[in-house]
């Protein structure tokens, strides 16, 4: 029975050992528990060997996560619940799994990110871990990750996971009608303010309710710090319709 190591990054931050494979673990986290998870769940598969470089996990995983006495798989054994993201080495982060409310799981592989092709914003970044505001910024993802993890700034975090969110606009400057944000006019105001004041970023919402969240993803997800970013591209619309239809239908619902 293989023991997996998962880093649950949204909605809570936790390091979890489990005998379930990612699909089953995602379904379990979303629907297979009576702990009433509400909304979407996201987690990384973590390489225990790489993780052992910074966390005391060497030889501990199987010991700490034994099967149930009846031989059944253990669904989850929490190994850590605080400052997990900053504690894991970047190379330990494997696939990122996006789980819908009804337990459908989509795995994203990290891909190289070509920072040279980055264009100036505006961008809407939805921060997911360890803090969760939604901000607008003209900084591209790599520079934004550097900015937000810069200890020289008064407000900073050691490492950040954020999503690059859709910010399509109509010809008159309004946000596109299909975007499910609660405060579209405020987002536009923030963009204008950032553009004029030449601020690096402005908070749009402190703790946004992530409505129809997966439907708002533009390029994908970024994990970044002062050393660089790890990029998890989101599938194209065609791929979602064709290859991941079941997940996408579920993801579009909420």
């Amino acid at each position: 029975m293989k023991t997996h190591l998962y880093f649950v990054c949204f909605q809570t931050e936790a390091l979890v050992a489990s005998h379930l494979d990612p699909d089953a673990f995602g379904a379990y986290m979303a629907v297979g528990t009576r702990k009433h998870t509400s909304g979407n769940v996201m987690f990384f598969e973590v390489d225990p060997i790489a993780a052992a470089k910074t966390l005391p996990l060497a030889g501990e995983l199987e010991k700490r996560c034994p099967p149930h006495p009846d031989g059944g798989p253990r669904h989850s054994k929490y190994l850590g619940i605080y400052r997990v993201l900053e504690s894991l080495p970047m190379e330990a982060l494997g696939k990122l799994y996006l789980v819908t409310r009804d337990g459908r799981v989509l795995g994203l592989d990290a891909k190289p990110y070509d920072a040279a092709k980055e264009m100036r914003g505006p961008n809407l970044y939805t921060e997911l871990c360890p803090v969760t505001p939604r901000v607008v910024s003209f900084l591209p993802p790599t520079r934004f990750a550097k900015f937000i993890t810069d200890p020289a700034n008064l407000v900073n975090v050691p490492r950040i996971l954020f999503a690059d969110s859709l910010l399509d606009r109509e010809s008159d400057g309004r946000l596109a009608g299909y975007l499910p944000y609660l405060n579209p006019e405020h987002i536009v105001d923030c963009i204008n303010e950032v553009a004029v004041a030449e601020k690096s970023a402005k908070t749009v919402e402190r703790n946004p309710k992530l409505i129809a969240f997966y439907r708002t993803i533009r390029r994908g997800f970024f994990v970044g710090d002062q050393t660089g970013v790890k990029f998890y591209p989101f599938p194209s619309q065609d791929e979602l319709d064709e290859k991941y239809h079941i997940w996408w239908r579920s993801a579009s619902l909420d």
Partner: protein
Amino acid sequence: MMRSRVRSRSKQIGFPLLAGLCMQMAAVSASASELDAMRMLPAWWWAAPAAGVLALVMAFWFFRSIAAANPGNARMQEIAGYVREGAYAYLRRQYKVVGLVFLGLMALLTYMAFVLGVQHRLVPFAFLTGGLFSGLAGFIGMKTATMASSRTAQGASESLNRGLTIAFRAGAVMGLTVVGLALIDITAWFVYLYKFHHALFGGHPMNLETITVVMLCFGMGASTQALFARVGGGIYTKAADVGADLVGKVEAGIPEDDPRNPATIADNVGDNVGDVAGMGADLYESYAGSILATAALGVAAATVAGWDAARTFSYLAAPMLLAAIGIVLSIFGIFLVRTRENATMKTLLGALNRGIYVSSVLILVGAWFLVKFLAMPIGVFWAITIGVVLGIVIGKGTEWATASDYKPTRFIADQAATGPATVIIAGIAEGMMSTWIPVLAVCVGTLLSFAVMEGFQDLLSGLYGVGIAAVGMLSTLGLTLATDAYGPIADNAGGNAEMSELPKEVRRRTDALDSLGNTTAAIGKGFAIGSAALTALALLASYIEEVRIGLHREAAMEYVAPAAGQPFVLKSIGADYNKKWAIFLPGAKPNKLEDQMFHTLSAFEGTGPTAVVLRDENGVEHSLIINETGELVKNAEATDIHGNRLAANKASLKDFMTLYDVSLMNPKVLVGVFVGVLAVFVFSAMTMKAVGRAAFSMVQEVRRQFREKPGIMEGTERPDYARCVAISTAGAQREMLLPSLLAIALPVATGLVLNVSGILGLLVGGLCAGFSVAVFMANAGGAWDNAKKYIEAGHLGGKGSMAHKAAVVGDTVGDPFKDTSGPSLNILIKLMTMVSIVFAGLIVKYAPAIGNWLNLGQ
């Protein structure tokens, strides 16, 4: 009624006529064989039953072609199998309950016919065949629809046109079965009553008034079946839908048509039992009712005007022949429906509209030739034209009120941005406002079709115009219903494709077919409600015809044979009110009611001389005025007919209005109007609450399954679909009884207390309120649904947004509006009229006594 009583030519008119009356009447039976010979049906009339048979043959051919189509892969067949089993399980249970209700009503009608003698003895059987054929139409439609879903999905995997063709032809099976069975039922009854009944059972050949009125009674069977199908199906489908949505979508967060949702199969079954079987039974009744009511009005107009036999027969046969032409053109139209690959919504709608418009134009051409062939006034053609145009206007009006391309639905969608409360307010307001198109269209259509038949000079002709306009509107029902039944078939095909995880391209095609189905279903509902309103006026007039027969029957039941040599007996009937009179002629066989009716003349009202009209076999009328002691005062001139006492058969509808004091100053009429309006609201409330209760059981069951079977959500355990189907079925059967029985009991109770005037008030109140509320509910529900779909298409934040959540609330409120209460209301209107018609004899006989006892006058 009485005009054919004296069939031998009178050599003289006056006292010698009366003196010879006994002999003349006795001679009638001797000439029975001659009468049979006279009752030859013209060859052209047989086109009507032939068209009915053609419709069934074509329906069978389409059915075979669908059955031969590829049913798809094992998964697709498995899902279709679940839906089919669920639908059959529902129908089995429904037919058991409805069977028991029919048994009870049959017993009551049999008692009324054979013991109380207040209606014709064939009425219980006419009632039964109406119910059987209506149920059969729904069953065949549903059988085809459940078979077609996987085949449509499979067809869509080949091409869009193939998918459209299979779904549409499956709908056509339903359409053609409805019109075929209706026309066969009508014509078979007609042939039997006209040619064979007297030959088989003895007695006198039935006159056309009696034939049409007896046939009209099968409408009650069809309406009763339709109401149960609509109410039961409506409750079923919405209980399943709400259960599936509330727990599946909202609580568990799983998408629509996800096989993990235990209620998803019940939801798909609901589309079939509500929108296919319910709609089929409903429109069967509308179609048959409009033909029969118009035929009855034609005969009544002929009777009062004293037209000759050939002209009378033309008026009787015209609606049947128009329906026959409509069937042929519907079949033609069905073949016109096809599309090319990569069709847009507009192209698909255009494909369906092509069939409808071409057949509509051709029906007018056919109507022109029919009117010329039958030598009818050109007003008949214009009335038919008005009906056809009216159908299109109502359809377009419904489309305007409910399609997301237009302002009303966009407005509701915009209001979703501010939450569910504003969505509800906007939906109710737009639904109310949308009534103006169909209501004004029906008003204008009624006035115009009345006027083109010179109705303001000749009331019955005008009403015939309104009736034939309704027949014109429904003439291409075979095609209209095909577009309507197509909706749920495409919807099920979409669900099947989704659950079977078919490729994107197939899902795109089934989605396109499904979207089109939503629009056509809304148009179909508007059409059903509009036709019901138009038919209702004809049925109101037919009710008076039944009262006319009821009066005569009541008179005949008190038959007293004149003494030897006495030419007749004049007797006051109906307790002591001195309003109704009977003149009994010698020669009736004792205890033979039908024979007594033949030898009875009925008249009503006043204290002066009684005027009656007798007509000999050559159609020559002889008017007599008889005093209260039974002596012939004089031979009346035509103008004398409007004396203080009128022969019931010659009395105009206005005379009946006077007899029963049907005026707004009569509180019974006003109370009846209020009761009719109240019936609409109470019935709507009962059906909506029924949905709530049935949905609650479903919600509990789905929650239980998710709770007790965690493997369902994880995909490792199969939900118990059958249990949800059983719960929805049981809920629908339990809940449909009370509202349905209300519709049956209310007119009888109102009639017994408030008499004919109260009933007419009830029917008018029910018609006006029912029509408006039905349109309001159907359109508000359709607009809410499409506002949600508009947002789901990516507007106002799209799927999952707060606006979407608000729109989902609107759609959930609208579900019982558009699929349960709204569509059931038009059957409520018709069933109340039909019950009034069938129970007219009972009311006419017993209501005066009850009214007197309650101190309410007669």
